[in-house]
């Protein structure tokens, strides 16, 4: 998989030197091997730190909201899931497409750093990625064991790009995307309440889920806006945890591409994607399968309707 990185680097250097783009949005080497960070590269020299590997889980699309406001064109590398967010942002006029050069890149799942730690790997000294396996510090894992939750259920494709850098066929998902949602739905209300109470009471309202979310690009979030009537900072009652997460999930309902960033970044491991995925599941079930970000023109399910839609009273979980 090292070859992918080489190809990407080549592409970036070419585009930079030809003047086609003035900046490159990609990932930068970290200190411990796994801690790669999103970065904007402006010169061939700075690209020395460029990496693309199994640790590049971060979704870069949201950075384009600000980046495309700047002078000049930017090259962005988009993994399949990032490209859905990208499309959705294009649909919502948040990104100026003329200012982006998109290169779709192959992704066979990205490593969950927490899982790495659980397996006793503190510093990545060496790694080797295959389509279905990854070897870190000599220890071989199946992708299913080690990748991010979002990656083990990923069904996303490489969508439209200016260019695509891909070598291998995409790995198929390890499990059903709605497995956990269904499991929760099959529980009793009391069990579900207990589950979420435990989960959400861990929330520290750091807003990482919101700030990383490509669907959350409001100029000012209602929760930060003292005039909105629901502004809040740290949760000072368990109600506020629910309020925040319900409203956030609702605000991205029909727009969430299920990129899984919310769960990836939550410092408390709250499976926030299960909230979004619940909405996605309900939308699919009630209004027909819909994948946000699959295109840049369709009406979202919450800005659409049919006369035959079910009544809220007839909607039951699962």
């Amino acid at each position, binding site marked *: 998989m090292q070859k992918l990185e080489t190809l990407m680097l080549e592409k970036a250097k070419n585009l930079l030197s030809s003047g086609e783009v003035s900046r490159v949005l990609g990932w930068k080497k970290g200190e*411990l091997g796994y801690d790669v*960070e*999103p970065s904007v590269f402006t010169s061939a020299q700075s690209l020395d730190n460029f990496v693309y590997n199994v640790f590049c889980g971060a979704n870069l699309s949201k950075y384009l909201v600000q980046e495309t406001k700047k002078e000049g064109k930017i090259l962005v590398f988009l993994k399949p899931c990032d490209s859905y967010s990208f499309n959705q942002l294009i649909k919502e006029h948040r990104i100026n497409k003329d200012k982006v050069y998109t290169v779709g890149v192959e992704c066979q799942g990205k490593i969950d750093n927490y899982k790495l730690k659980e397996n006793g790997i503190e510093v990545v000294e060496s790694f080797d990625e295959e389509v279905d396996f990854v070897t870190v510090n000599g220890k071989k894992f199946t992708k299913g064991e080690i990748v991010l939750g979002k990656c083990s259920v990923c069904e996303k494709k490489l969508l439209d790009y200016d260019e695509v850098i891909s070598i291998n066929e995409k790995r198929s998902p390890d499990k059903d995307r709605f497995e956990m949602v269904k499991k929760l739905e099959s529980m009793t209300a009391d069990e579900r309440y207990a589950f979420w109470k435990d989960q959400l009471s861990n929330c520290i309202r*750091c807003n990482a889920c919101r700030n*990383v979310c490509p669907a959350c690009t409001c100029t000012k979030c209602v929760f930060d806006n003292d005039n909105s009537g629901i502004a809040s*900072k740290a949760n000072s009652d368990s109600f506020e945890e629910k309020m925040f997460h319900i409203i956030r999930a609702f605000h991205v309902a029909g727009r969430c591409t299920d990129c899984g960033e919310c769960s*990836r*970044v939550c*410092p408390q491991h709250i499976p926030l994607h299960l909230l979004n995925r619940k909405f996605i599941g309900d939308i699919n079930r009630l209004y027909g399968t819909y994948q946000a970000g699959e295109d840049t023109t369709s009406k979202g399910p919450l800005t659409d309707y049919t006369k035959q839609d079910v009544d809220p009273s007839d909607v039951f979980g699962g």
Partner: protein
Amino acid sequence: MKKIAISNIEKLYNEISSLQELYLPVKKAGATNFAKYENGVDVDIKSLQTVKSAKDLFFPQSEDMIDFKVSGKNIEIKDARAQSNPFVLFGVRGCDLKSFEVLDKVFLQEPVDTMYKSKRDAVTVITLACNNPESSCFCKVFGVDPANPKGDIQATIVGEEMFFEPLTDKGSELLSKLTTLEDGDEKAVESEKKEISQKVEKLPFVNLDLSNFKGENLMELFDRPEWEELSKACLGCGTCTFVCPTCQCFDIRDFETNDGVKRFRCWDSCMYSEFTKMAAENPRKTQMQRYRQRFMHKLVYFPANNGGEYSCVGCGRCVKKCPQSLNIVKVIKKLGGKN
């Protein structure tokens, strides 16, 4: 020196909690945080670190200050600050313990913050030596010895036993009341400590150079061009500040209850875009400025006011928790000196 078999430790928790409220690392929904010991909680003493630091116990996420009753033009003020009962805080690691010193410098400085102080006075801290420091740990850089966290009582796990050594009167007093403990031998502890120290030396960030954070070069550091690149990926979330054991920025907010107004204070973050926003102006408009503020504060401003003491204890939480893998280590490596 006292000890207990780890297999018996629930008894100890029960005994402590029968004397005072006991707070210790508890795993809930997959995350370990300090929480009150109660029957049935999943105590997680093995995890090196809680997600939220121990500052939560003295400076909680949110705490009530005042209840106002408002009727017509009249206002009635009722002090709503809770008085803290004595409690035991168990399982504090060296870094978190060090953070109490940093927080004390803020909250116990005149005018003393009574909400903080009452909890600080009420606590008996049982620290716990770190048997297995992680790659993200760099507490040594800030003078912390993870093998020797000097709490009221210092606990060390050796094999299948936990050893307790009282270091203060408060500690001795508590320890003397604990009948579940038996006498233990110091030797095992000493060798464990040595082992820890050796492990610490091998950690990747143990030799971070802070020599450039001197104080007299404040403006030079402030104007360094590297801030732009360092902060590029910053989302402006508050994860680093909220998991940080020394971050202590807060907000004072009002909440309208059904029969009055509750004023409370809660954690705030200098990383938030609204943090310094005034009606018309915002002195820190860009995320770069806010990012710079946070690290300048920790590494330059705070030491300038506190005899060179940094407002970072090297716990590495930000290293582990930053969504985009930005952290203070990267800042120190760029700006700290010969890194």
